[in-house]
């Protein structure tokens, strides 16, 4: 039963992705992207990753609002014109090559639904799971990893967010900075 729900979710996400690529109406494309995100968060929930599912769903809501409110209503909502034949052929060939490589790679992975770290006994994640509570005191193992064992990652993520916000506010600000000759007034 669980597997059936899982496959249904995956089919839902795939169909939404196809519609998002193929449709000509930008608003329906954005809504389909949102459907992909919500399906993805449900998949994360079924894979027993509530942290990721929660973050995914709130970011998806905010991203949808930003896309619809700030972008769609200000721009053209329909795409016109046809695809280039050469570009389509090239992308299909590249996607086929990646698909064939992917088949080989996915054979190496452990069975679906089993944790990767159970395969190698000396993996670092074994330490995180077994000693996380006594070394950091946090009962949420994910938080103890992202804020204690791997806090550098979080610092980098915060820096990336900070830099992108600075860029957005600098580019999109309403009032321009004063020119040097206007400064003395």
């Amino acid at each position: 039963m669980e597997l059936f729900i899982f496959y249904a979710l995956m089919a839902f996400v795939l169909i939404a992705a196809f519609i998002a690529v193929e449709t000509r109406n930008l608003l329906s494309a954005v809504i389909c992207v949102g459907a992909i995100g919500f399906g993805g968060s449900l998949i994360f929930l079924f894979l027993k990753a509530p942290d990721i599912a929660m973050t995914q769903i709130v970011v998806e809501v905010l991203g949808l609002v930003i896309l619809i409110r700030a972008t769609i209503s200000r721009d053209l909502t329909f795409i016109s014109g046809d695809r280039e034949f050469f570009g389509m052929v090239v992308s299909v060939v590249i996607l086929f090559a990646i698909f064939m490589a992917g088949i080989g790679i996915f054979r190496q992975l452990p069975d679906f639904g089993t944790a990767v770290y159970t395969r190698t006994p000396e993996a670092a994640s074994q330490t995180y799971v077994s000693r996380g509570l006594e070394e950091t005191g946090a009962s949420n193992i994910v938080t103890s990893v992202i804020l204690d064992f791997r806090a550098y990652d979080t610092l980098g993520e915060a820096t990336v967010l900070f830099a992108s916000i600075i860029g957005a506010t600098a580019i999109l600000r309403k009032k321009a900075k004063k020119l040097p000759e206007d400064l003395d007034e």
Partner: protein
Amino acid sequence: MAANSSPSNGAKGMTVIVKTISSWVKMLIFLFGIYIIITGHLTPGGGFAGGVIIAGSYVLLMLAFGREFVEENLPLRWASRFDCIGALLFALVAVLGLILGGSFFVNWLFRQQILPSKALELVSAGTIPLSNIFIGIKVGASLFLIILVLSMFRPAHLRGEKE
């Protein structure tokens, strides 16, 4: 998706129904964000998810009441200050680890047993809840800032219509 102004109210924003509901729901969403942040070390969630929820409560207000209403409560200047303060305090926690604990990002509050730290309690795990709170402030302010800036922005072909 344009802001449909209700004739009875005369103000900017959506209809009376949306305004009433969102004025009831806004504090619940905000409190839920705070809850997600401060129990991030015990239950699923954490600074990032809670910060996004807090930004979401402001975005709800912005959609319902219009941009000017939100700008009065939390101006762009203050949002960018909160953003910088959160980032600075998060870095400060890390640097304090370097000074007091010996290495960058070490959990100095937990290692040296400064606070009583029993597992599964709200005040535990040393610097992890502190970092969660600072990241929550930072992420909430910055995501609010980005949607504020994006909704202020008018492309060139629309610029002449308003203002």
